[in-house]
Each structure stands twice: as structure tokens, then as C-alpha cells.
């Protein structure tokens, strides 16, 4: 029998970016919040000795161990899935701050085109432009509606950047100036400008100067130390829930975090959630946490799995295309691009921040004509300097052996004599790509693991090829002596280089085709909100966190309205369903 805890206004499942934002906004509005976090406590004191490639980059010290649970992967409906077993193939944040502690903090917004992708594509190219099984749909919100919340997220996180000349619709400038430019970035800027593109410095949550956010939390200036994307920042220079929204919530005295608390079910009576059941991961003891509002604020996988385990919402069926929970899952880890080798030029590749670079968006969204192209959307091209570490960075021109005398010679020679163009690309959803529960593999408590069914689509392959062509042109123009392309992998393996997945509990304008409304409120359960990239109907070109943060800030307004007005749906269902 679960031990019953005192009822609170809000319980969050996880205390990363989304849990932290919910806690900060709801406690500031006077409500009590309990955050249940399966990982350990973390503060900046834990960040002081993190310049260690083995412990952080390779062994994932601040990421979730797979000892008790993982996820399984298959490419098609016909196959059996196998579990991801090796922790280094999974990169899911854990502990206070979650993925928000180890992120690279690259913070672009999604484009107006993304939110109305289906309507805009059909308007311009006709229905036949969308392949039969591609399940793109509008998000049930427009860019203009979301813009104030992008602004709010950027101010909270102290984002340092300059406007992207292609996407000028901003109500305010970035709160901080862009990061400094390294030599490779200057070269990229010059060459892309000459080629007629519109380069800009990548906006980042590693702040360019000391900054105090509207909540009174201070971030320090980035030192370009390069231990960033797999590490937490000892300077407090990277926007991280641990140094921003979590302390903001804690200052109110209305926020309590319980660590080692793994939520197993959302409890409900009829169409109303009553709380959650969680276990202390150390003892196995079970607790019930009653709450007026239940908010799922975990990574995509845990959000969707908890809905499936709790039997909330209509389970998606990949054969009929009906149902919503598990629908439109996307993976965003395919890295396109090229590496250029310079025989006579050395760069300070060891110095960087998590999202250090210069980019162009000229081949994204519908900025370029797709009439004669057999894909939709596109990719951003980035000159990225990631702070090359010596174990992981042994880049050699193709044709060089991967070990032995020649390898050693070339890998030493080119360590500081190469530059990388990296491309993040939009990922479209498909009918047979989805999430459900695995029939074979279980976690330590005996519950089924989440199963991914996904593979690269023709759309992915065509964007990859198109973008690689552009990258090659730019790198050659930059003066590289040798230019090697990133190859297209045969199949998706489930490997997570970072945390870029979307879908499974998607947002939209009506409950036939979406799980949550544009306040991330479940259509089927008014007092259950699901925050995260699980709400993305497709994956935009760039990193998910900025859009997740904006959607979550907007959702907190809905939560506050719900609690003050005594409940109900916050959005009226659009009568005219978008099932064109």
C-alpha cells in the first residue's frame, strides 16, 4: 500500500528545463509544487572538476544509467526490437537540471513555416507534394502566438546572439550580444556572404557577458573552456535549470524537490488526474502524491511511456493511423556535413563553447523553391567548433588507416588543421514511425520498456545529399585542401549523440489528430499537462530546447488559468478538422 503524501497544487514528473520552468512560474503565482526527480541532487558544487573527457564525454557521468531501464529500437513494424544496452549510446540527462545541465545550449527558434507546415506546403505546391505516408500536420499554434514566449525563454536563459537575417520576426533583440568569433567562423562568414548567403553567429545559452535575468538569477560570462556539451558549467555561465529556474522556484519557499523518486503511474478517476504513484529508487518503497495538476516534464521517452503505462489517451495504431499516443515520433541525430583538412593552416580547435559557431539558414523551411526538389523543408549549415578533445577527435582524410603508424601521424597532424561543417536538418514524421511499449523487455519493476519504431526516410536521405553538396561547395571555397563528406548511415540504430527526439504526445488543433492542445493540456484529461518535445508534430531544423521552453512558458499560463478559474479545457476544438 502506497504511503499517501500531503496534497499539493502541482506535481511535476522530472526536474529539468520543463519541470524547472513549471516550478518557477507556478510557485511565483503562489501555488505549491513538488518535483519528483529520479536522479540525484545536483548543485554548482558538483561542477567544479568536470574537465574530464573520460568521465563526462565518454562515460556520461551526469546522464541516466541504464542499469534499471532503457528503451528498445527496431526499424520496421515486422522486426523485433532490441534494447539499447550500452550507456554511452544513450544520452539522457538525470538529476536536478536533467538534460538542461549537459546541453550544448544552441538556441534557435523554429520558423513560422514549421507551425503551419501542412497548410503552407499544400498552398504552395499542392497536396501531391506530401508523400502518402508522411504525417505532417499544423501545430495548432502560429509563430506569432508563440513569439512572446520565445522572448521570455531567451530572457530567462540570457541567450547571446544576433538575429538570423532570414527570420527577422522578433519582438526584442537577444538579451546578450553574440559570442566572440574564432578564425574558422570568420572564414565561414566571409565565404558564405560572398556566395550570397546570410551568415550569423549561432545564438547560445552560454552567455557572452555577466547577466542577471528577470527572475534575479545571475549567469557569468562564458570562458570558452570547451568542456560544455557533455559537462555542466562550473562558472555558472551556461543557462542550466540548476542555476536559473530551480533556484527561482526554491526562493519562493513553495517548491520541494524529491530525488530518487521514480514515477510509475498517473492516477485518475474518470477524466480527472488525482496524482501520481512513485517509488523511492533506493528502497522500492511506494508513495502516492496527490495534486490538483499533474505535469509530465521528463524526456520524450519517459513522458510517452508514462502515458502508455497509465493507459491515458488513445494508443496510436501505425496500421490504421488512428489514435494519438506514440504518434509522429522523430529522431534528429543524423549529422550531415563535411570535414575540411588544411595542410598549412592551424586552428585553435581546443577552444569553444557548446554551441560555438556561425550558421546560414538559406536552405531551411520554404526559403528556397522546392518545386523541382523531391523533399520538403531542409537543413541549417553550421561552421561548428566543438572544442576538440583528444580521444574523440582523431580525424584523418578518407583512405587513411584507422590505426597504426600512418593513422598516428595523420591524426596528430590534422588535429588542429581541420574544420567541420555540420548540418542539422528537419525531420518529417511518417505513419509507421511511432512509440509503443515493448512486448519483451522490462524495467526493474517489471514494467515494459518504451519501444521505438523508426528509420531514415527518403526525405531525410534527400535533404542529406542536397545539404552535403552545399557544404562541400562552402568548405572548398574556404580553402580546405581535402573535403570529406559525412556518409549517410544505412539504418537508424537508436544511438543518441545528444537528446533530440520529438513526438509521441503531439500538439494540434483537435483531439482526433493530437494528444495535447496548444497549452500542452491533454485533450482527454483537463488537469494533465505534457511538456517537452513530445509535443512536436515534426522535428524542426535545429535544437529543440528553445521551442520546448517557449511552449512550456505558454503552458504555465494555461496551468495558472486552470487553477484560478476552476478547471476546464483551455482551447476550443476547431470544428473543421485538419484531416485534409
Amino acid at each position: 500500500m502506497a504511503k499517501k503524501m500531503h496534497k499539493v497544487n502541482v506535481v511535476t514528473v522530472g526536474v529539468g528545463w520543463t519541470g524547472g520552468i513549471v516550478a518557477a512560474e507556478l510557485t511565483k503565482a503562489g501555488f505549491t509544487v513538488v518535483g519528483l526527480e529520479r536522479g540525484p541532487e545536483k548543485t554548482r558544487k558538483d561542477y567544479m572538476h568536470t574537465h574530464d573527457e573520460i568521465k563526462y564525454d565518454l562515460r556520461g557521468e551526469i546522464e541516466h544509467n541504464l542499469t534499471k531501464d532503457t528503451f528498445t529500437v527496431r526499424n520496421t513494424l515486422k522486426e523485433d526490437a532490441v534494447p539499447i544496452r550500452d550507456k554511452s549510446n544513450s544520452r539522457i540527462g538525470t538529476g536536478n537540471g536533467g538534460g538542461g545541465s549537459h546541453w550544448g545550449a544552441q538556441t534557435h527558434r523554429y520558423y513560422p513555416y514549421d507551425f503551419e507546415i501542412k497548410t503552407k506546403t499544400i498552398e504552395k505546391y499542392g497536396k501531391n507534394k506530401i508523400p502518402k505516408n508522411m504525417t505532417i500536420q499544423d501545430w495548432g499554434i502560429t509563430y506569432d502566438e508563440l513569439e512572446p514566449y520565445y522572448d521570455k525563454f531567451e530572457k530567462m536563459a540570457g541567450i547571446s546572439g544576433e538575429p538570423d537575417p532570414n527570420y527577422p520576426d522578433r519582438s526584442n533583440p537577444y538579451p546578450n550580444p553574440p559570442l566572440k568569433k574564432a578564425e574558422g567562423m570568420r572564414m565561414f562568414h566571409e565565404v558564405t556572404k560572398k556566395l550570397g548567403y546570410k551568415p550569423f553567429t549561432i545564438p547560445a545559452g552560454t552567455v557572452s557577458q555577466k547577466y542577471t535575468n528577470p527572475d534575479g538569477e545571475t549567469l557569468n560570462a562564458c570562458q570558452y573552456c570547451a568542456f560544455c556539451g557533455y559537462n555542466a558549467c562550473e562558472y555558472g555561465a551556461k543557462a542550466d535549470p540548476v542555476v536559473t529556474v530551480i533556484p527561482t522556484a526554491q526562493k519562493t519557499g513553495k517548491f520541494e524537490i524529491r530525488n530518487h523518486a521514480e514515477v510509475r503511474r498517473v492516477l485518475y478517476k474518470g477524466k480527472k488526474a488525482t496524482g501520481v504513484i512513485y517509488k523511492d529508487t533506493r528502497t522500492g518503497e511506494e508513495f502516492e502524491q496527490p495534486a490538483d495538476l499533474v505535469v509530465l516534464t521528463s524526456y520524450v521517452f519517459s513522458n510517452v511511456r508514462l502515458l502508455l503505462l497509465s493507459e491515458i489517451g488513445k494508443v496510436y495504431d501505425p496500421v490504421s493511423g488512428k489514435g494519438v499516443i506514440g504518434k509522429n515520433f522523430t529522431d534528429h541525430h543524423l549529422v550531415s556535413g563535411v570535414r575540411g583538412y588544411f595542410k598549412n593552416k592551424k586552428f585553435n580547435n581546443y577552444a569553444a563553447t557548446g554551441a560555438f559557431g556561425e550558421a546560414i539558414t538559406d536552405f531551411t523551411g520554404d526559403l528556397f523553391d522546392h518545386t523541382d526538389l523531391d523533399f520538403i523543408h531542409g537543413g541549417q549549415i553550421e561552421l561548428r567548433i566543438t572544442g576538440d578533445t583528444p580521444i574523440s577527435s582523431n580525424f584523418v582524410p578518407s583512405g587513411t588507416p584507422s590505426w597504426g603508424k600512418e593513422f598516428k601521424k595523420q591524426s596528430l597532424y590534422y588535429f588542429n588543421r581541420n574544420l567541420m561543417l555540420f548540418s542539422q536538418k528537419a525531420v518529417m514524421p511518417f505513419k509507421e514511425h511511432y512509440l509503443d511499449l515493448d512486448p519483451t523487455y522490462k524495467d526493474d519493476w517489471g514494467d515494459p520498456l518504451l519501444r521505438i519504431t523508426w528509420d531514415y526516410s527518403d526525405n531525410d536521405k534527400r535533404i542529406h545529399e542536397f545539404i552535403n553538396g552545399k557544404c562541400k561547395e562552402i568548405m572548398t571555397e574556404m580553402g580546405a585542401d581535402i573535403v570529406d563528406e559525412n556518409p549517410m548511415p544505412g539504418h537508424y540504430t537508436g544511438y543518441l549523440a545528444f537528446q533530440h527526439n520529438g513526438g509521441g504526445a503531439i500538439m494540434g488543433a483537435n483531439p482526433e489528430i493530437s494528444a495535447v492542445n496548444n497549452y500542452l493540456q491533454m485533450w482527454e484529461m483537463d488537469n494533465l499537462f505534457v511538456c517537452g518535445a513530445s509535443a512536436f508534430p515534426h522535428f524542426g531544423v535545429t535544437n529543440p530546447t528553445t521551442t520546448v521552453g517557449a511552449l512550456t512558458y505558454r503552458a504555465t499560463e494555461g496551468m495558472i488559468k486552470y487553477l484560478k478559474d476552476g478547471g476546464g479545457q483551455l482551447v476550443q476544438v476547431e470544428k473543421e478538422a485538419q484531416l485534409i
Partner: protein
Amino acid sequence: MSDEEKKESDKVDQSRRNFIKNSGLTIGGLVLGGVAGGLIGSNSATTKSQTTTKPVKSHETKEFTEAMQFFSRKEDFDTLAAATECIFPEDENGPGAIALRAPYYIDKQLASPWGRNVNDYRKRPFKDGQTPLNRGEIFLQGIRKLDEEGEKKFQKSFRELEEAEQIEILQDFESGKVKLEYVTSAEFFAMLRQSTLEGVYCDPLYGGNKNMDGWKMKEYPGAQMSYANVIESKEFVKIEPMSLSDHF
């Protein structure tokens, strides 16, 4: 040298002489520890390269952390060492895997939770080629198979072969030609290669990258605290490396 320093130095020298006497090994003024022991007289390339390593200072002779945590048979350790040296050999750029202590690094890692896959998902069934073995088991099996292949092809254990013969065997492993139980030789080789590079370039805290010489060869500055003054530089800036022990 002060009297006291002299006394200290004599003491160390004495223990060094005892060590040499006990191990019976000295080439070109360099005291060779256990790793090279199995290689002497059998691998000319490696032995030659050892002699080019700078002599260690007398007070550094005793390395208390250089012994076996994971391995129980010295032969396994020596074969591992020979294989790492093929992957990252000593050359005109600087030391190889053995001089950088990559074999000791690997031994320590295999004895750690990582070597026993403690943080990995280990529930059955293992199917579609997923291995039920932990990393330590894979290394032991792979290393002993290296010796078996050496005997089969060249009538000597792997660690006693000429470098060219060792490379030939490693290429067979890399291409998956050698049969292992519950794991492919290609998977073992990939782990061996990765672990060797880790041992060559890790923070010296982990027992490899001796004296930060791996980083020095690569012109990698290690665990620096800030590059704010370097980041905009047009020219390459060479910085002497720093390790985590400097943060302590």
C-alpha cells in the same frame, strides 16, 4: 645538490638498482617495467622505440599504481600491451601506447564499474548479435585469442611476434575473420582500439597519457580553465597542457 637531497637520491638509486637486479631488465639506461618485459628480444620495433624514451628520473622509478588490478595472468597483460603498441606505435612524433601507459589504463578501466558493465542494461534475452559478455570478459577472450592466432599462424604467442606479423593478426580481428564466442572479433578490435586511444589521451589521473606526453604530441592543452584570451586569435596558440591534478 644538498646533503639531504643527495641522501634521498642515493636511497632511491639503491632501490632502483634493486629493482633492476630483481627484474633483470635495463636497456639503454632505461628501466623497463613489466610491460616491455614480455616484448624484449621478440619485437624489435617496440624494443628499439623503448630506448628512445627519455630516462625516467630516479625519484620516479617506483610507480605504485603500475600493477594489475584486473588481469590475473601477466601473459595477458603483455599481449594486450603489444597489441596497443601496434595500434599506437612509438615514432618520430613521440611515445607509443606502452610508453604512455595505455595498457595500465586499460587494466584499471576493466577493473572499474565500466569493465563490468555496471551502468548498462543487462537483462536477457540477448539476441540479434547483442553480446551477453561484459567488457572484461570480452578483453580476456580477445587477448587469449590473439595469442592462439599467433601460435596458429606463426608458432609464437602474439606478444613474441614481429610487428608486421602482429599487424596481420590484428587486421584479421578487425575485419571480423577470427571466430570468438558470443562476440565478433571486429567488436573486440573496436574496443581495443578505442581503449588504446583512451589510454594514450586520457587525463593522467586514469593511469595513461604518462606525463601528458599524449597531449603534448597532439598540441592539446588539456584541462585548462579558460580560453577567453585565445578564442579570437587568428594564429594558432600553443599552450602547455594542464591536468585535473592542477585543479585540485
